[in-house]
């Protein structure tokens, strides 16, 4: 099996400071990888470099495109990268308002992604929008409401529907459950697990919540000060952490 994403020796510097450095990994189709670490450890920098939002200073990010096999997304042209961002990739922001158009209806938010890949038939677009809103448990009578009229949890689910409607193969998520209350978080976790399972998605999830990665991620990468200090199977890293920092992280979790 060939990897869906191949990251080699990636580095990003902010002047003299390290954003992230020396990152290499392969992600295979259907795999979910979690990236954990404290604030400032470089996990969001890494995610943004992978998703093409930031230009890395060094290294390669190769993505298995449908037509040409593995292509380095760092050196490909801007239009090609944007096309990937609209089709095979999806990016779920921590704050739903960063990923939604707040002045466009819920249906319009979902439909816009479809129109970006040349869907033109209004009836079809609306039908698909209704289908996806249903999958993320937003009832059909809310389709013409704007996201500003939605709760935080609903906005996050709408953002997920908007991102997944084009059938992406790789989803980047930045703290997808951060800032939501725990009952909403649980529902979102179940939704994400079902979508990953049913659509065969690959995903990279940045979070600082170890409970979230235990339930969602197959694999885990632990970052500290811009470096990857440990990688492995999620339950192995959490149950038998090898690096001192991971041991500290795991033993610092408060028990409920």
């Amino acid at each position, binding site marked *: 099996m060939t990897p869906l994403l191949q990251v080699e020796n990636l580095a990003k510097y902010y002047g003299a400071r390290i954003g992230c450095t020396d990152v290499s990994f392969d992600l295979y189709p259907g795999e979910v990888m979690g990236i954990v670490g404290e604030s400032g450890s470089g996990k969001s920098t890494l995610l943004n470099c992978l998703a093409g939002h930031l230009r890395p200073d060094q290294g390669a990010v190769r993505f298995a495109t449908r037509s040409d096999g593995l292509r380095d997304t760092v050196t490909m042209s801007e239009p090609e990268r944007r096309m990937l961002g609209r089709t095979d990739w999806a990016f779920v922001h921590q704050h739903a308002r960063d990923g939604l158009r707040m002045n466009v209806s819920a249906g319009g938010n979902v439909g816009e992604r479809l129109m970006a890949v040349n869907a033109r038939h209004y009836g079809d677009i609306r039908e698909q929008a209704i289908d996806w809103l249903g999958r993320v448990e937003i009832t059909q009578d809310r389709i013409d409401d704007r996201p500003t009229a939605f709760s935080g949890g609903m906005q996050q689910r709408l953002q997920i529907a908007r991102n997944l409607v084009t059938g992406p193969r790789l989803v980047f998520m930045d703290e997808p459950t951060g800032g939501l209350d725990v*009952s909403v978080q*649980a529902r979102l*976790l179940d939704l994400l*697990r079902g979508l990953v399972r049913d659509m065969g998605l690959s995903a990279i999830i940045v979070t600082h919540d170890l409970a979230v990665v235990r*339930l969602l991620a197959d694999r885990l990468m632990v970052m500290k000060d811009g470096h990857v200090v440990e990688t*492995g*199977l999620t339950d192995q890293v959490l*149950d*038998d952490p*090898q690096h001192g920092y991971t041991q500290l992280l795991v033993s610092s979790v408060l028990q409920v």
Partner: protein
Amino acid sequence: MISVENVSKSFTLHNQGSTVIPVMAGASLQVAAGECVALVGASGAGKSTLMRMIYGNYLTASGRIMVGDTDVASAAPREVIALRRRTLGYVSQFLRVVPRVPTIDVVAEPLLLTGTGADEARAQAATLLARLNIPERLWGLSPTTFSGGEQQRVNIARGFAFAYPALLLDEPTASLDPTNRATVLAMVQEAKARGAAIIGIFHDHAAREALCDRQVDVTGFTPGLAA
């Protein structure tokens, strides 16, 4: 089916003076298809540690752990995931689930992951739950609020939903009443009969006598304790 060859492990506690605790050395054991082997030894001797090493959630320092064609001790994460999906089942002592997911879906999940259709998976889950005496009115509820015994039975139902060729059982009969205990014993017998290789930890002496073909005393693998 399962072959543990000269395996060792130690824990290093970096935040507690870098204490190194050797917990296992020279561990070897073989389990054939259709065989059930009990791990015995006092508390702390390393029964659960060895089981977790076989499942891959503890790292192995040296040696080989073959389950089918996969060496868990050296396999990449995705190989271990594939192994757990279709080959190696594990019934732990604790149920770990996404909150608010209905019990029946918790039990059906291993089937969905292996490609069984949603309706068929739920039907099989229902059969298992009924057999383990979980009242039908509870199936639509999340198991997080269930009693200890009920949670354990949900865990067992989930662990037996897919017919894994290799099974790890960590105290499957603890905290069960006599009726349910008998059901679980029968389920383990059936798994043996269909050819599953089973490694179990049973403090329940009678259960061990009834199910297991052999015993392996892990005390012999514990550095500093070996006679």
